[in-house]
C-alpha cells in the first residue's frame, strides 16, 4: 500500500513542479537552520565535556563575604592543601596567567602566557602535535599550533628558543619550546597559547609564592575519585576559609564552592573574575532556536496552505477512494505520506545547504566553531528523523484531514466549498505574515541599534582619541614627551585608568553604609582631553603630581541617583579604607566600558603620577591613522624590546557594533527568507481565490466595475487578517528584539517606532506587490475566455 502511495505521491508532485519547488526550498532552508541550531545547542553544552575525566573534575570557586558574589578565582594553596588532606581527592591542578612580552629575534609581542602545575595535562586533554610536554622542566615552553606558525612559520619550533619577559631586564628568561599542542578547541573554557610551569610566573624577579593563601590563581581544579563525593568534599573545603581570611584581610572569603567541569561554561557568566573563557551566551542559543522554529513554522504553514490550494484537484480522487472502500484514516495516511515525501526531499536539501550555512555562521561568530557531520553522529540522525516526522505532521496533518474529510456525495455533485478563503487558511496566512513581520522588526531593530551605538553619546569625545599602555612609568613619560613633538598631536594626557579599557571596582562606606562603585584614577589632564564634562560643583581644586588630588573625588550622575538618592552630594564624604574623600563635583555619565556592560556609579579620583599606565593622545579625526602610525614608529625607535600597545579609542565600541551588525544581518536574511515564503504562499492563495471568483470578477468587469473595486472584492477576506497579523507581528518582533538585546547588551537602543513602521511597510509592500502581480494577470485576462471558462 505504502509503495502505491509513494508512486502516486511521486507522480502527483511531478505534475506540481512549482508547488514542490517552493515547499522543498522553504522547508529545506528551515530544516537546515534546525540542524544548525541543534548543532549549536550541542556545541554550547559540549564545553569541557570532552576531557576524559570531565565527570570527576571540579573547579573551586569562592563566595566573597562582602557582596556574597561568586568569584572564579581560588586561593593559590587551597587545592594543593586540600588534595593532601581531604580523602577522596585524586589530584589537584591550577592555572594562572598574565601578559608577557615574548621576543624572537627582532620581533616582540605581548602574549598571554598560562602557568600550570606539572600534572595539568594529566587532568585535561590537550593533545600534542610535536615534541613533548615536559611541564616539569622549568625551562620548557609549550606553544600552540597558531603560535608555532606566528613565530616560526613553516619551521618546526621544537628545540628553538623564545625570550619571555623580554621587556624586563631582571626577569628576562630564555625558554625552549619542548612541544606544540593542537589549538585549544573553541568549546573549551581553558584557552591558551603558551603553557609553562607555575614557577615561571614571576613577580619582580622572584617566582610567585603559590603556596601562599594571599595569592589567587585564575582557577584551581580538583579531581575526585568519585563525583558523588562532591558535596562531602565541598563541605570539607570550608575548613580552609579560616586560613585564607587570616592571610588576606582585604579579601574575605565566605564559602568555597565546587563547580562541576561540564557545567562550568554555562554558568560562567554569573561568576566574577572568571579568567577562563565564557561559554556561548544563552541568548545566542535560544535566539537561534527561536529563529529556526519561526522558519520551520512559516515553511510548514506555507506547505499546508499550498497543499490545500492544490488539494481541490485531489478531491475527486478522495471521493472515489472512499467509495472503493478507503477509510478516512487511510486517505489521511496517504496524504501524509505525500507530505512526508516532500519533507524528506526538503531534508536532503537542508542537509546539504547547512554546510555552507555553517561556514558562514562560524565566520560571523568567531567564538563558535560548528561542524555538521551525519554518519558518525547518531543523535543528530535521530534528531533529523524526529524533526522530519514532526514537520510532516505539522505541515501535513491539517491538509490531510481537510482534504480527506469531504463527503463523497458532495464531491460528486461538485457542490463543495473549498480552499483559500476558509477561516483556517486565512488564519494560517495571518500567522505567516505575523512571523515574517516579527523577523523583519527584529532585523531592523538591531540595524537601528548598531546605528544608535555608532552615534551614541559616550559621555566623552571618542573621535580623534588614541592611546598606548605600559606599566613602566619612565617609558610612558619618554613616549609622552616624544609624541608631543608631532604637530598633528593636539594634546596628550597620562592616566592610570581609561574609559573603555580599565577601572577598579571598589567598596567604600557612604553614610555608614557599604556601597560599591567603579573607581577611575585619572591624571589631571585626562578629563578635559577626553571631553568629559562637569555638570555640578568644581573639578579638583589642587593637584599635586606626587599624591594626586589627595582628598577630593568627583562622582557621576548615576552615583547621585543610585547611591546619593538624588540628594545633593557635593561636600559629602565617602570613606575608602581608612581615608575619607570629599565629593567636589559631579561629572556627566560616560560609557565606562562597552555596551555589553551596565551603567554604574563612578567615582573619579585624581591619581598621582606614579600610578600612570596610559598615555592618551588627541588628534583631529582625519589625522588618526597618521598619528597612530607615527606613535608606532616612535615607540619602536624608543623601545625595541617592547611590543607596541597602541590602540584607537573606537575599538571600545567595535565589538558591540559588530555583534549588532551581525545580528541585524542574520535577522534580515531570515526575514527575507520568511517573507519570500509568505509571499509565495500568498501568491498561491490569491490565485486560488481569484480562480474561484474569476467568473464573477469577469462579470463584474463586464458590468463596469473598476479595478480598485475588484481588488477589494478579491482581497477583503484578507484585510482583517492582515491587520491582526500586523499587530501580532509588531508585538512579537518587539518582544523578541528586546529580549535578545537585554540579554546581550546592558546598554542598547531598544525597539524604536521607526523600526516598527519600516517593518510594517516592508511587509505590506511585499504583499501588495504580490497581489498586484496576480491582479494584473487577472485584469489583463481575456474577458471572453473567463466567461466561457468553467
Amino acid at each position, binding site marked *: 500500500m505504502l509503495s*502505491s502511495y509513494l*508512486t502516486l505521491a511521486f507522480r502527483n508532485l511531478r505534475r506540481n513542479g512549482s508547488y514542490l519547488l517552493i515547499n522543498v526550498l522553504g522547508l529545506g532552508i528551515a530544516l537546515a537552520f534546525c540542524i544548525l541550531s541543534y548543532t549549536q545547542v550541542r556545541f554550547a553544552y559540549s564545553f569541557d565535556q570532552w576531557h576524559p575525566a570531565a565527570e570527576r573534575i571540579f573547579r573551586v570557586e569562592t563566595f566573597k563575604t562582602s557582596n556574597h558574589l561568586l568569584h572564579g578565582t581560588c586561593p593559590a594553596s587551597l587545592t594543593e592543601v586540600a588534595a593532601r588532606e581531604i580523602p577522596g581527592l585524586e589530584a589537584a591542578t591550577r592555572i594562572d596567567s598574565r601578559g608577557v612580552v615574548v621576543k624572537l629575534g627582532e620581533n616582540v609581542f605581548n602574549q598571554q602566557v598560562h602557568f600550570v602545575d606539572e600534572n595539568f595535562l594529566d587532568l585535561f586533554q590537550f593533545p600534542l602535535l610535536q615534541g613533548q610536554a615536559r611541564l616539569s622542566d622549568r625551562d620548557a615552553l609549550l606553544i600552540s599550533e597558531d603560535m608555532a606558525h606566528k613565530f616560526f612559520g613553516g619551521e618546526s619550533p621544537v628545540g628553538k628558543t623564545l625570550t619571555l619577559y623580554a621587556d624586563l631586564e631582571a626577569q628576562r628568561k630564555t625558554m625552549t619550546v619542548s612541544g606544540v599542542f593542537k589549538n585549544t578547541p573553541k568549546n573549551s573554557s581553558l584557552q591558551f597559547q603558551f603553557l609553562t610551569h607555575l614557577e615561571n610566573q614571576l613577580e619582580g624577579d622572584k617566582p610567585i609564592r603559590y603556596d601562599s593563601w594571599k595569592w589567587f590563581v585564575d582557577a584551581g581544579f580538583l579531581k575526585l575519585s568519585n563525583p558523588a563525593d562532591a558535596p562531602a568534599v565541598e563541605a570539607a573545603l570550608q575548613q580552609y576559609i579560616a586560613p585564607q581570611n587570616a592571610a588576606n584581610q582585604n579579601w574575605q572569603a565566605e564559602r568555597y564552592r565546587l563547580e562541576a567541569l561540564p557545567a562550568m561554561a554555562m554558568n560562567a557568566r554569573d561568576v566574577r573574575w572568571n579568567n577562563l573563557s565564557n561559554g556561548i551566551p544563552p541568548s545566542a542559543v535560544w535566539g537561534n532556536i527561536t529563529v529556526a522554529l519561526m522558519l520551520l513554522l512559516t515553511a510548514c504553514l506555507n506547505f499546508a496552505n499550498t497543499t490545500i490550494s492544490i488539494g481541490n484537484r485531489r478531491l*475527486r*480522487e478522495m471521493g472515489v477512494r*472512499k467509495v*472503493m*472502500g478507503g477509510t478516512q484514516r487511510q486517505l489521511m495516511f496517504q496524504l501524509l505520506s505525500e507530505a512526508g515525501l516532500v519533507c524528506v526531499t526538503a531534508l536532503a536539501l537542508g542537509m546539504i545547504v547547512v554546510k555552507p550555512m555553517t561556514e558562514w555562521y562560524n565566520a560571523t561568530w568567531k567564538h563558535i566553531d560548528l561542524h555538521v557531520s551525519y554518519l558518525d553522529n547518531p543523535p543528530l540522525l535521530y534528531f533529523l528523523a524526529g524533526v522530519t516526522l514532526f514537520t510532516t505532521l505539522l505541515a501535513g496533518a491539517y491538509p490531510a484531514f481537510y482534504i480527506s474529510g469531504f463527503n463523497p*456525495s458532495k464531491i*460528486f455533485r461538485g457542490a463543495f466549498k473549498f480552499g483559500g478563503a476558509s477561516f483556517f487558511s486565512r488564519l494560517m496566512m495571518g500567522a505567516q505574515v505575523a512571523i515574517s513581520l516579527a523577523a523583519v522588526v527584529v532585523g531592523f531593530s538591531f540595524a537601528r541599534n548598531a546605528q544608535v551605538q555608532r552615534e551614541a553619546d559616550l559621555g566623552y569625545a571618542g573621535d580623534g582619541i588614541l592611546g598606548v599602555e605600559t606599566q613602566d612609568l619612565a617609558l610612558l613619560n619618554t613616549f609622552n614627551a616624544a609624541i608631543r613633538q608631532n604637530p598633528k598631536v593636539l594634546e596628550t594626557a597620562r592616566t592610570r585608568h581609561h574609559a573603555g579599557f580599565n577601572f577598579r571596582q571598589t567598596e567604600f562606606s557612604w553614610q555608614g553604609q557599604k556601597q560599591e562603585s567603579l573607581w577611575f584614577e585619572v591624571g589631571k589632564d585626562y578629563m578635559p582631553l577626553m571631553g568629559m564634562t562637569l555638570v555640578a560643583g568644581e573639578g579638583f581644586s589642587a593637584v599635586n603630581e606626587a599624591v594626586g588630588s589627595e582628598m577630593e573625588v568627583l562622582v557621576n550622575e548615576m552615583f547621585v541617583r543610585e547611591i546619593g538618592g538624588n540628594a545633593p552630594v557635593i561636600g559629602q564624604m565617602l570613606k575608602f579604607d581608612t581615608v575619607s574623600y570629599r565629593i567636589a563635583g559631579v561629572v556627566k555619565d560616560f560609557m565606562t566600558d562597552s555596551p555589553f556592560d551596565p551603567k554604574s556609579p563612578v567615582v573619579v579620583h585624581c591619581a598621582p603620577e606614579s600610578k600612570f599606565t596610559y598615555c592618551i593622545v588627541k588628534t583631529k579625526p582625519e589625522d588618526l591613522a597618521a598619528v597612530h602610525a607615527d606613535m608606532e614608529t616612535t615607540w619602536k625607535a624608543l623601545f625595541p624590546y617592547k611590543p607596541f600597545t597602541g590602540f584607537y579609542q573606537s575599538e571600545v565600541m567595535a565589538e558591540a557594533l559588530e555583534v549588532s551588525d551581525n545580528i541585524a544581518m542574520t535577522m534580515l536574511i531570515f526575514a527575507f527568507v520568511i517573507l519570500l515564503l509568505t509571499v509565495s504562499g500568498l501568491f498561491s492563495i490569491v490565485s486560488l481565490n481569484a480562480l474561484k471568483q474569476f467568473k464573477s470578477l469577469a462579470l463584474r468587469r463586464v458590468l463596469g466595475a473598476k479595478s480598485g473595486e475588484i481588488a477589494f472584492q478579491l482581497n477583503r477576506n484578507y484585510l482583517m487578517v492582515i491587520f491582526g497579523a500586523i499587530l501580532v507581528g509588531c508585538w512579537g518582533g518587539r518582544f523578541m528584539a528586546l529580549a535578545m538585546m537585554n540579554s546581550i547588551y546592558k546598554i542598547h537602543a531598544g525597539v524604536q517606532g521607526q523600526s516598527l513602521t519600516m517593518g510594517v511597510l516592508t511587509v505590506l509592500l511585499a504583499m501588495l506587490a504580490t497581489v498586484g502581480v496576480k491582479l494584473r494577470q487577472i485584469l489583463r485576462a481575456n474577458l471572453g475566455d473567463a466567461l466561457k471558462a468553467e
Partner: protein
Amino acid sequence: MIELKNIERYYPTGSLKTYVLRYVNAHIAEGEFVSIMGPSGSGKSTLLHILGMLDEPTDGEFWFLGEGVHKFNERRRTEMYREYIGFVFQAYHLIDDLTVYENLETPLLYKKVPSTERKSRIADLLDRFNMVAKKDLFPSQLSGGQQQLVGVARALIGRPKLILADEPTGNLQSPQAKEIMEVFKTLNREDGVTIVQVTHSEDNAKYGNRILHLKDGRVENEELVKH
C-alpha cells in the same frame, strides 16, 4: 436485498423544506437489474446516492441485506463498499495519476487482497474487457468508452453484489454505450450481480428487468420490462 420504506430527503431552503424525495417505497431483490428514469431534477441521483450510502435520507427506513442502514457507522459503510457495492459514474472518475492496472488494483488494496490474487483477478478482468494492451496507460490516454470500461471493471473487481451506476453511458456515443450495457447484462445474467442504474435512455433502460419512473421526488410508476 434492498428495502426502502417511506424514504424522504429534503434540503432546507430558508425556513422551508424543499423535498427532493418523498414517500419513496421500493423493493429490489437480489439478481434484479433495475433502471431509474425521470426528468432532470426529479431526484434520481439523490436516490442512487442514498442507495450507495453516500447520502442519508432525512426520514424513512432503508434496509440492505436485512440490516438497517441508519444504524451503520462509518466503518460498516466502508465495509459495504469493500464487500458489496460497486460504483460506476457518468464522468468515469478514474484516478488520473494511476495507470489502468493501478486503478483496478486500488479497491483490492483496500480489501487487503493478497498480491498474487490481485494479479490474477486484474488479469482476468483485463482479458474479459479486451484491455490487456492498455493496462499501463493512464486514463488520459484512453477514449471515453475505454475509460468507462475501466470504470466498470473497477466496480467489478471487488466482486460486489450490487452495482450502482449513475448515467454510466451519459457521456458516450451509442455504440460504446451499447457495449457497456451488454457488459451489464452479462454480469446480471451470468454472475447474478444486482444492478441499479440511472438513465435517460429508453433503450438502455430496456436492458434491465424493471424500470422505476421518478417524478418530483416520488415513484410515479413501475414498469416491468418484457423480453
